[in-house]
């Protein structure tokens, strides 16, 4: 296994983005969880297998944008992240689509999921593909 060395530095390898809605429940946590799932499933960080890196060393920084960030249960959102250790913050953003006639609000959340991994760049070099 490729273990972090003294010269390893935490580097961001990817920013994944997604959006999620809660259409009738005005549940900001549910919209945020769906946004995280959308973000996660548009990519696979296969580097952990390719370079035999322990995925437990990954730090996952999650930022949720919704119109009422105080209503997001960040602990529940963090539970959506299957690998590494996640830190979730909710900020003002996203979009609410209000229908004044029916009095309904569609909640749209946006999620940014950043994966940070300790990498020793000096331990690797480019070569010819076989």
């Amino acid at each position, binding site marked *: 296994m490729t273990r972090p060395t003294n010269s390893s530095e935490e*580097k*961001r390898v990817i920013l994944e983005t997604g959006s999620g809605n809660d259409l009738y429940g005005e549940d900001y946590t549910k919209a945020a969880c769906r946004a995280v799932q959308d973000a996660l499933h548009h990519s696979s960080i296969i580097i952990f297998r390719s370079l035999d890196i322990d995925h437990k060393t990954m730090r996952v920084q999650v930022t949720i944008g919704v119109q009422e960030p105080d209503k997001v249960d960040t602990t529940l959102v963090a539970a959506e992240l299957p690998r590494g250790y996640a830190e979730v913050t909710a900020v003002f953003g996203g979009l609410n689509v209000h229908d004044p006639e029916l009095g309904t609000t569609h909640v749209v959340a946006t999620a940014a999921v950043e994966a940070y991994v300790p990498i020793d760049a000096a331990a690797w*070099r480019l070569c010819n593909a076989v």
Partner: protein
Amino acid sequence: MAKKRMVVQFGQGHSIRRVDYTAAAERAVRDALWHNSLTVAEAFGFPKSAMIIDVEIGVQKPEEVNVDEIIKVFPYGQPSVRVVRGGLDIPKPHREGINIIANAAVIVSFAMEAEK
């Protein structure tokens, strides 16, 4: 095997009004790319031009995808495109025609090896 896969990105694209498999495929590739921002080249100190980009596209009529148009989507790296039978065509309910759905996977690799 020196070619190491870093990330696989997934996307889906449609052609709803025109029956255009290339447009659907191109949108699927854009969907895959623009859901993510890769910083893996910087993380290793490699130039982005060293990125090996293997694109796989699934549509119901692979022979109708113009691969050159797909290649143009990529601003850097070494892209190659493989089109297979897949995706989904759904007939329109009230008149002639189909909705085309393309699936895309964009596999980003480096040819790399450990120092020493």
